[in-house]
């Protein structure tokens, strides 16, 4: 028996279906690739923020005083004569934070400093997430009675 050929309508429908599949498939593919890329970028950002907070926490921990200038520069006076300075530059993409003149750390969110608990702690707000860093030095000297 002779096989029936495709009609023009069937071919048009097939092409339309293929087009829809291609469109949906490419969108899905691009979205999936974007998700994978975002996940990797997110992980890198988390690592940078964690590193920043770890360094800052160590300095605040041993700080005799926490002073914040109007331009959001934090001066942490250390035991002895030294002091550590943390400066922030807000950019369109986020903020660049620098400890003294060391290599700057860039994060994709604004960052602000605020002294809390009577100067015994420093509140660092990255984006909308606050983290409170305590000065053990001040707790031992100034806040022992509190």
């Amino acid at each position, binding site marked *: 028996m002779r096989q029936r050929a495709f009609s023009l309508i069937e071919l048009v429908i097939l092409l339309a279906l293929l087009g829809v*599949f291609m469109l*949906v*498939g490419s969108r*899905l*593919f691009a*979205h*999936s*690739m974007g*998700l*994978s890329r*975002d*996940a*990797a970028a*997110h*992980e890198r950002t*988390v690592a940078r923020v*964690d590193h920043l907070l*770890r360094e800052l*926490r*160590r300095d605040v*921990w*041993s700080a005799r005083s926490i002073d914040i200038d109007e331009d959001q520069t934090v001066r942490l006076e*250390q*035991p*002895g004569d030294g002091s550590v300075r943390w400066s922030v530059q807000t950019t369109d993409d986020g903020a660049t934070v620098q400890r003294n003149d060391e290599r700057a750390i860039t994060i994709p969110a604004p960052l602000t400093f605020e002294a809390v608990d009577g100067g015994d702690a420093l509140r660092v707000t990255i984006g909308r997430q606050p983290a409170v860093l*305590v000065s*053990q*030095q001040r*707790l*031992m*000297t100034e806040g*022992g009675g509190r």
Partner: protein
Amino acid sequence: MRRGNGFATFTSVVITAVVAIGVMGLLLTLRVDVKRTRAATQSAQLRQMLIAGAAEADALLRAAPSRTGEHPVALPDTLADLGATASCTFEPMRGDRKRVAVTAALNGGTARQVLTYETGPGGWVFVSAELERSP
């Protein structure tokens, strides 16, 4: 077997693969967040234990100025049940200074700080606290 099954199979495999990549990306992000939240909670707890240990070390040193060796810090039952430990190690006096290491451990993570004291007219005077290790 019907004709056209090859195309349907190929399409479904491609779409499944693309969705799987997307789900993997989401799971990776979620895993990072969960891991980070857990680490941050543990880290905060360890620092609390260091602060408690420092207060205890200070009191112990004032009660017995020549104290040396390791002394455990008493922790609340809720923490002790989780296997948390904290201790103060009083080093022998070196010159006019004495160092006390406070160590805290919980779920495989550890944190450590060193307190330095120097002799003063009324006994030991606290000089500095240095966070040596914090997860």
